């Protein structure tokens, strides 16, 4: 297993290298430059040119890339071109809130999806099943921003039960309880989307497993239907679910952009938006690298979890 993990990590190095090159090219092809975005339109062309020269933006692309890569290898992600803070600091500040939001959303989403999916599958074609599948359909089709705005309207504007955005109540110290309080709406929005998709997967997976011979064996032993479903069937049904939940992790980075924007959540999503708006190349590069690492990492974790969940799979 250890050898397998090492090998997987080694394989991912050229992949990451390729991703950074492609990203670098795409970012630089986009019209506009950081300098255009940050200055007063009245400033003279000479001064602009000088600023570009100072930032190294006039160097050939390959040299810019190599400089960036050289810094990266020394653990330096560069400085933001808009706030002039180190990119690592920017990301460091933002990653916590995003991970909290992502983690909570996935957990809540799965916690909704698994029981609902089981109910849906064990009572196939019943009232409950139709209710669950309709609910899941709604969860998938309602856009995050729409649901988010709707919830803010109902729960923050009309009835001031929950905060409309941010991570801490202004003018207070914050604290865990306050943060959790602020997380309710954004987590709910993200979790509904996740649950909507996962209910279908859990249902389909359960339906397939419910027809298996070994469940008849389990029933023939005299086990309760509850044990048959939730131990014997579920363990098997969850194996394919691991993949689809894992695929959610990198997607959430993207999905959270809009949700974080709506709820003014001080996370990676917001930072991404800001850096794109201001053509902040170093920050964009770092965020893209982070997304790529997340994808590769979550794939690896999924594969490892797979072998833990399914004894038939062995890596070597």
């Amino acid at each position, binding site marked *: 297993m250890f050898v397998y993990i090492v090998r997987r990590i080694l394989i991912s190095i050229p992949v990451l290298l390729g991703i950074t090159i492609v990203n670098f090219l795409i970012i630089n092809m986009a019209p506009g430059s950081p300098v255009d975005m940050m200055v007063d339109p009245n400033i003279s062309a000479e001064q602009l040119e000088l600023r570009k020269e100072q930032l190294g933006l006039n160097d050939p692309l390959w040299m810019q890339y190599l400089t960036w890569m050289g810094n990266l290898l020394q653990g330096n992600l560069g400085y933001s071109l808009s706030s002039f803070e180190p990119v690592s600091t920017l990301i460091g500040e933002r990653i916590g809130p995003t991970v909290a939001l992502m983690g909570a959303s996935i957990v809540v989403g799965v916690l909704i999806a698994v029981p609902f999916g089981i109910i849906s599958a064990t009572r196939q074609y019943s009232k409950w099943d139709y209710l669950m599948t309709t609910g899941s359909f709604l969860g998938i089709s309602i856009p995050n921003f729409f649901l988010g705005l709707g919830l803010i309207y109902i729960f923050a504007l009309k009835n001031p039960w929950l905060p409309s955005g941010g991570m801490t109540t202004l003018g207070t110290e914050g604290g865990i309880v306050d943060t959790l309080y602020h997380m309710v709406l954004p987590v709910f929005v993200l979790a509904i989307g996740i649950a909507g998709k996962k209910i279908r997967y859990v249902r389909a997976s359960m339906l397939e497993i419910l027809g*298996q*011979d*070994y*469940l*008849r*064996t*389990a*029933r*023939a*032993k*005299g*086990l*309760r239907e509850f044990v048959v479903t939730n131990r*014997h069937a579920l*363990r*098997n049904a969850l*194996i394919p679910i691991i993949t689809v939940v894992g695929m959610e992790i990198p997607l959430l980075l993207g999905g959270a952009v809009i949700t974080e924007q709506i709820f003014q959540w001080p996370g990676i999503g917001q930072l991404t938006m800001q850096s794109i708006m201001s053509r902040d190349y170093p920050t964009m590069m770092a965020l893209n690298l982070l997304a790529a690492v997340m994808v590769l990492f979550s794939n690896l974790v999924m594969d490892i979890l797979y072998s833990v*969940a*399914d*004894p*038939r799979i062995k890596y070597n």
Partner: protein
Amino acid sequence: MLTDLLHIEHLKTAFKTDGGEVVSVDDVGFRLKTGETIGIVGESGCGKSVTSLSVMRLLGKSGYVKEGEIWFNGQDLTKFTEDEYRRIRGNEISMIFQEPMTSLNPVFTIGYQMQEGITLHLGLKGKKARDYAVEMLKKVGIPRAESIMNEYPHALSGGMRQRVMIAMALSCKPKLLIADEPTTALDVTIQAQILELMKSLRDESGTAIMLITHDLGVIAEMADKVIVMYAGQVVEEADVFTLFDNPRHPYTQGLMKSIPHVDSDPDERLTSIQGTVPSLLAMPKGCRFNNRCQYAEERCRQEQPLLVTVGEGHSVRCWLAE
């Protein structure tokens, strides 16, 4: 004289389908004593498996016993609640299935799956349950029983898995073992091993066996008495010697002549039964076998024959047998 351990009377089992109710077992009955083995033989769709699943009440969501009584050990199982049923499943009545490759749960160890029933019905826990399970595995001839406990099913061959299934089924010392095509999926040399094992365990424990198979060879090897099923009904019932010496139903006769076996003369042409088994949704009027029977008369096409006694313990459902 021993009383009957299992006594099924006028069993009728049906399934709900989109096209309405389908009766797949119609008026099946037999008696089975402790230590006795009854063979139920027939082709696919004849209702032999459904009969056995009716006894276990494992018919799934759409199946149900519609009519009839299943007397087991002096109690009518059809009156049992689901809770009462669970207490005898895997305990007093246990079952092994056709496909050893898919009958064990792939994500739990052999030990876990063995101990589950032992803990549930015998109340043994922890090391005691484990020791008991190891003991059972040894009994069914599994080498390295201790380490097999920690293996997952995929690591075992088909024959070994079927041995595990047998160990699991026998661990609570059932009074009745239902074996649904237990060797059909196995290679012949392995089948011989498993049949031998079942025989010796039966002789040792006195467990009654309901053996479902399509293989008359397995029947001849194992059974004390036999019922032959066709299209959901019992068409002939007899002790094993009478059945093989003097089969009275044209279907039984056809079945025996149509099977090429190792001892038969290869130059002799096989007698085949023409046509195919009728669909449950479109049973022929009269005798259900009439459209394939070479002796069918007008009466067979009009009236359904009843199961009538033609000799001691020998009954036949045929107009011509009278």
